[in-house]
């Protein structure tokens, strides 16, 4: 196991958002994290990605403790994430955002900003276009400001940013929410391809069960801040407790 | 495209700045708007005197004078800009400039450009005929004004002196000179405190309580009318009498008794020019001019300007006469001739506004007297004293 999270607990005032949450992911594995609204999925992702600092618990990645590190340090260590809601960023083009994602990569870290001034980034541009924007069907809008794009495409841009970092651990928060089912399936396909190519570990929070079922190798179900079930996609669908809590059956 | 628009704007704006040519051009910049606007009468005085020559004598030596009055707003960059315009575009043969800062910043360039310049700031540093052969000053410096007040106190047997000044060059500079010169002790007086305050302070109650605790026999104000108003108002609150206070030349303004009434009574100030309305020959000219055009400021500073106008016109006239009644074709020559004529004036009569002027040392005259607010009016209370 390369990602091992244990006993992760975080409270907001009186609300216990995540309580003694445990999760493990191996490289090359896509784990689906599902659960009803307010279950604490986003909060858990925020803890792993350095946005929140949990009160207790450990999150180890290849043996190193991640808790307490800032998002920028984590990104440099290969932990990238996407957001449930995408921000609209004025004046930045799709390619700009992808480049920002790529800026965390080791091979882009030498020399500092002053060298950037004189360094051409056309090679990077080509690479991003071919490897990331093309598969996400963003190549044709690469030079458009992102606020001119549809919601679905903006979500794709957010994914492109995370992928451009060539992450080893990829955290996806509802990547296909708000997308048409065609768009969603395409996006899921890209995630699988990236996993195949980079061999990265993926945690995918998602409500759309068809996407979850067809993409994930394993599924973890959260409710009220804790893990209530873990298993293969088929097992999850069969479990009566999950059906009751999450799928709303009696 | 954008570039073209930007260029068009630039070009249009600068196009308005094409040089205007006049045979004799005098450029005056003052503070028409800005912190010193209450005491800007001299800027109008110079212009009006030159205008009156245009009206009564057809100008100077038969040449119409273009007297251009500009607003420096007491802002350094604005004043530096105006200076360029005066030298370069207006071809001014004489310039009257305002703030201490601008005169200092320009002092080298004035020499380089060789343009006669009369400063409305009384900073002693620029009064140096060797270093700054083109800079002239009308009357006593701030230091000399202060010495007149100190001598008066010594003569009356007082002892304890407090100096109040603003926190800018105008306030600090002369006070430092006086402090370092040791003149206070030489006169047998004691400087018990110096109080600095913000130039734009609106409340000086705390400072006035401090002044009161020093039990002064005299408080000298090195600041201008707006500050003097705040000082006297808060002095009254602290129970300090107006007669304890004496201010420099720039605290003679009808505004002070008008705004303060009783609190201004007894307040004294240094007077170096006859008041507006005094029965002197110059006043007749002013009244004659005033009959045809409105006079912007009817105060002592206007008289100062009128006097400066007389000196400028006399020097220009001398230069034209020397050139056989024609304006020298080369502005450089013209300016140099005017400078020499200015220096050559040793007994210039300005119609009684001041004693006869002598610009051989670049300072027209060095005497002043003390005036006191009495019944809402400034009334002279002493003889003219030479401040050298």
């Amino acid at each position: 196991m390369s990602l091992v999270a244990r006993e992760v607990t975080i409270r907001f005032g009186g609300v216990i958002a995540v309580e003694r949450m445990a999760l493990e992911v191996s490289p090359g594995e896509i784990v689906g994290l599902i659960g009803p609204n307010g279950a604490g999925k986003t909060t858990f992702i925020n803890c792993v990605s350095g946005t929140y600092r949990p009160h207790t618990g450990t999150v180890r990645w290849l043996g190193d403790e991640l808790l307490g590190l800032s998002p920028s340090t984590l990104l440099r260590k290969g932990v990238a994430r996407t957001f449930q809601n995408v921000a609209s960023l004025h004046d930045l083009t799709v390619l700009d955002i992808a480049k920002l994602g790529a800026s965390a990569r080791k091979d882009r870290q030498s020399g500092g900003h002053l060298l950037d001034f004189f360094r051409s980034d056309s090679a990077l541009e080509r690479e991003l276009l071919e490897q990331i924007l093309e598969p996400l069907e963003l190549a044709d809008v690469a030079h458009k400001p992102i606020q001119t794009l549809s919601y679905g495409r903006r979500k794709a841009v957010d994914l492109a940013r995370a992928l451009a970092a060539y992450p080893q651990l990829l955290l996806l928060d509802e990547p296909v929410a708000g997308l048409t089912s065609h768009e969603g399936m395409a996006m899921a396909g890209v995630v699988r391809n990236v996993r195949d190519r980079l061999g990265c570990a993926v945690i995918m929070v998602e409500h759309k069960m068809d996407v979850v079922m067809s993409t994930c190798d394993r599924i973890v179900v959260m409710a009220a801040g804790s893990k209530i079930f873990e298993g293969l996609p088929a097992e999850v669908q069969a479990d009566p407790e999950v059906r009751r809590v999450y799928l709303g059956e009696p | 495209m954008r570039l073209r628009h930007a260029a068009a704007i630039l070009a249009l704006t600068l196009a308005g700045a094409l040089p205007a040519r006049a045979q004799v051009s005098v450029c005056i910049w003052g503070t028409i708007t800005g912190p010193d606007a209450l005491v800007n009468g001299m800027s109008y005085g110079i212009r009006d005197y030159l205008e009156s020559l245009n009206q009564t004598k057809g100008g100077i030596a038969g040449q119409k004078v273009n007297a251009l009055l500009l607003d420096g707003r007491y802002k350094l960059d604005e004043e530096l800009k105006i200076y360029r315009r005066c030298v370069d575009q207006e071809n001014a043969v004489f310039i009257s400039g305002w703030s201490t800062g601008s005169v200092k910043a320009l002092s080298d360039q004035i020499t380089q450009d060789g343009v006669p310049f009369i400063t409305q700031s009384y900073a002693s540093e620029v009064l140096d005929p060797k270093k700054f052969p083109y800079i002239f000053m009308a009357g006593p410096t701030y230091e000399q004004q202060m010495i007149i007040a100190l001598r008066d106190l010594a003569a009356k047997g007082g002892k304890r002196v407090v100096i109040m000044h603003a926190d800018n060059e105008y306030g600090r500079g002369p006070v430092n000179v006086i402090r370092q010169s040791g003149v206070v002790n030489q006169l047998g007086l004691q400087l018990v405190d110096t109080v600095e305050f913000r130039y734009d302070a609106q409340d000086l109650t705390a400072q006035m309580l401090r002044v009161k605790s020093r039990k002064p026999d005299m408080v000298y104000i090195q600041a201008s009318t707006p500050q003097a108003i705040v000082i006297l108002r808060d002095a009254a609150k602290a129970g300090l009498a107006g007669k304890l206070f004496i201010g420099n030349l720039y605290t003679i303004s009808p505004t002070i008794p008008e705004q303060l009434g009783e609190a201004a009574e007894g307040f004294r100030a240094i007077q170096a020019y006859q008041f507006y309305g005094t029965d002197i020959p110059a006043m007749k000219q002013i009244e004659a001019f005033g009959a045809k055009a409105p006079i912007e400021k009817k105060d002592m500073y206007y008289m100062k300007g009128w006097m400066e106008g007389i000196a400028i016109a006399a020097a220009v006239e001398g230069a034209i006469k020397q050139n056989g009644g024609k304006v020298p074709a080369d502005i450089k020559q013209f300016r140099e001739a005017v400078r020499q004529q200015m220096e050559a004036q040793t007994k210039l009569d300005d119609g009684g506004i001041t004693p006869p002027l002598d610009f051989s040392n670049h300072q027209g005259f060095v005497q002043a007297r003390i005036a006191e607010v009495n019944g809402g009016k400034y009334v002279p209370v002493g003889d003219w004293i030479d401040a050298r």
Partner: protein
Amino acid sequence: MNTRHLVIAVAVALLMGALSLAFGRFGAYMVNAVAIAGIGALSLNLLIGYGGQISFAQGALLGVGAYTAGNISNAGGDGLLAILGAGVMGAIISALIGIPALRLRGLYFAIATLAAQAILEYLFKILDPITNGVSGLVIRPTTILGIPMTSDRSLVVPSLVILVIVWVAVSRLMRIDLGRSFLVLRESEIVAKGMGIDVAHAKILAFFASGFIAGLAGALAGFANRLASPEAFTLDLSADYIAMIIIGGLGTWTGPLIGAAFVVLLPEAIQRVGEAAGLSDILSPLRELAFGLLIILFLIFEPRGLTALLSRLKPRSLAVPAPGAVPATGESLPP
């Protein structure tokens, strides 16, 4: 893209150079003033327009540059060294001013910069050995690379060269990772942080870069004015610079220069029009009013400034589709 900016910058500088020759010494002084204001506005636009950090300390920062350059030059250092020294000093002081920005945001930080402006103004007045107190530091004419800078015309050259370099450098900066992270920072610090941008690092660098450029502008202003005095670098000057970047268009590439030209030339234009119409006595006080009014009007009607106004004049811009997200389709659970 970059070469286009380079071409535009060089063309504008050449045009300004030509104007300075065509309108004599006064023209040279005005062109120099516009160039210096342009550099200062580029600096502030980098900080506010691109980095989203509101600062009212720009006037004082220019002062830091002027005093630094004045001292180096008066001590016999070459003008170029003085200008670069002013840049470094501006950068350092600006980074110090930026430290509270690591904790404070928006208006709260803006208040902190007001304090910084006041502190620096105070220091200008009391640090006598460096600043010569309230008298101001008289700056003797400098020499740049051995060439004496005695006339207004000679000063135009370094100002325009620096303007071009800074203008192009800002354009380039916005095309590297650092500049892009400024833009994200401006939109939202939380988003920036989430995207893995080192917010503190980016902020301090924004102040550093902006301060460096402000220092250059201050040095050039010092050489042009030949005096660095506390009264020249007050909050009024900061306000002028904020006016420039708002009127020109916040966060645009051409805006700072257009705004600078506008703010520097408008008073003169009003003055000359007033003189021509015989109304200068009335129009003179109006100049101050005009600025306030213009800023309010721009904020209400054209927040993106003159740049946007000018680009709307060209028919080409009609073809650009209005920005706005297409509504999302497809079923999904509410977030």
